[in-house]
């Protein structure tokens, strides 16, 4: 199991990387953390003829909080996110999701940009980005553009980022006070891909009424899935057990996962209900206004 031969480009700047992509377009792939791409190459499922290594690009690894937005350089390692006090304080959901990404050794190399651009439907970061309505910034020869999460994921491992564009930044909104969140996952073993991943975010006002709810799922379709219908069940309501259960039921009814080696489609759908409900309960209990419920 050895990779096919490729031309190696060690990019030292964003411009460098974009230039290499422009020259090779469909034949080139970005090498970020390599934790998904290199296994595919070792299996020879992927055989890019040019590999553009962005590990040496300056200025793509940072975590910044500005004006209600958390911005991450695309090459920020998942391990750095796990250790970041800013993330722990401003986006506990991302921290919780990060701890579910493989193992520490994987997170030491894996990057936030790489995970999102790879767009594995079972992965954690794409589901978080979608749930929080985050954005990604991409740069190509024709300049920079911002892609909202809702327009990013097309299908399995496929995004609307063009082959000649480089993802440079990931932006997540900082959630208001009164917000609770949870990321729960069902998997066969610790560190495995999610069979079902459920993201729940609720913002509750001082009276205990849900002002805003966000639910996203991983592992049950060709992309991460947002459950707007279920969210509207929660909005404007006291988050009672019945309301949470109804929202969870809505989520399960909205997805049609297929069978795979580890679980049947029916099972996955039932687990959507179970894990959304559990995640919602946890999110509600974490919003700091539970006494009002």
């Amino acid at each position, binding site marked *: 199991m050895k990779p096919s031969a490729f031309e190696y480009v060690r990019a030292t700047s964003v411009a460098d990387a974009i230039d290499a992509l422009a020259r090779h377009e469909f034949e080139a792939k970005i090498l970020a953390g390599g934790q998904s791409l290199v296994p595919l190459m070792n299996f020879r499922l992927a055989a890019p003829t040019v590999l553009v290594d962005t590990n040496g690009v300056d200025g793509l690894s940072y975590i910044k909080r500005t004006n209600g937005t958390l911005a991450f350089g695309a090459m920020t390692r998942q391990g750095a996110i796990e250790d970041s006090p800013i993330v722990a304080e401003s986006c506990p959901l991302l921290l919780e999701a990060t701890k579910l990404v493989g193992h520490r050794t994987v997170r030491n190399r894996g990057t936030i940009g790489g995970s999102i651009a790879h767009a594995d439907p079972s992965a954690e970061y794409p589901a978080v980005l979608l749930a929080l309505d985050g954005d990604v910034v991409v740069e190509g020869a024709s300049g920079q553009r911002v892609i909202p999460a809702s327009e990013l994921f097309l299908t399995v*491992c*496929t995004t609307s980022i063009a082959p000649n564009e480089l993802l440079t930044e990931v932006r997540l909104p900082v959630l208001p006070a009164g917000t609770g969140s949870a990321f729960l996952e069902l998997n066969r073993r610790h560190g495995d891909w999610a069979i079902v991943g459920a993201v729940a975010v609720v913002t509750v006002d001082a009276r205990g009424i849900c002002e805003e709810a966000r639910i996203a799922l991983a592992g049950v*379709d060709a992309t991460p899935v947002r459950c707007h219908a279920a969210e509207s069940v929660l909005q404007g309501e006291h988050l009672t057990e019945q309301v949470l259960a109804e929202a969870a039921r809505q989520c399960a009814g909205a997805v049609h996962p297929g069978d795979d080696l580890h679980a049947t489609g029916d099972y996955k759908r039932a687990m959507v209900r179970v894990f959304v409900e559990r995640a919602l309960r946890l999110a509600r209990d974490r919003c700091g206004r539970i006494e009002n419920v």
Partner: protein
Amino acid sequence: MKIKGESEFKASQQRVWDLLLDPEVISRCIPGCQELKAVGDDAFEARLRIGIGAVSGTYEGTLRITERTPPSRYAMVFEGTGRGGFVKGSGHADLRAEQGGTIVAYECDVEVGGLIASVGQRVLEGVSGFLVGQMFSKLQGFAREEAA
């Protein structure tokens, strides 16, 4: 693996029938189709370059129409091989007129073998659904263009 679904066309049943069996149209609608050539009655050879994310490969294969009942039903068998292994299967499509348009109900039994089957089965169904979906949405596009 079973791929099954329905696709709605805003065109007459005869028109859709003609579209679906026109090699020229089909070759432009099959994702990544680089070549589709007739090698006899109802038999074709094709070369496809399929790419999903970082995974891509060229497949060469054949397709043969095994049943033709114009304008309502046809069936086919196909097989292809490439670096990731092989794909083979059989399927059929049933056309019916409905509310001024045409519904195509299709069903395929697909066997994927080799490397992709042994290491990629987690995403296989999603990918197949996406590729078939792409093909039909392009076909729908053709039908729309003609209608317009």
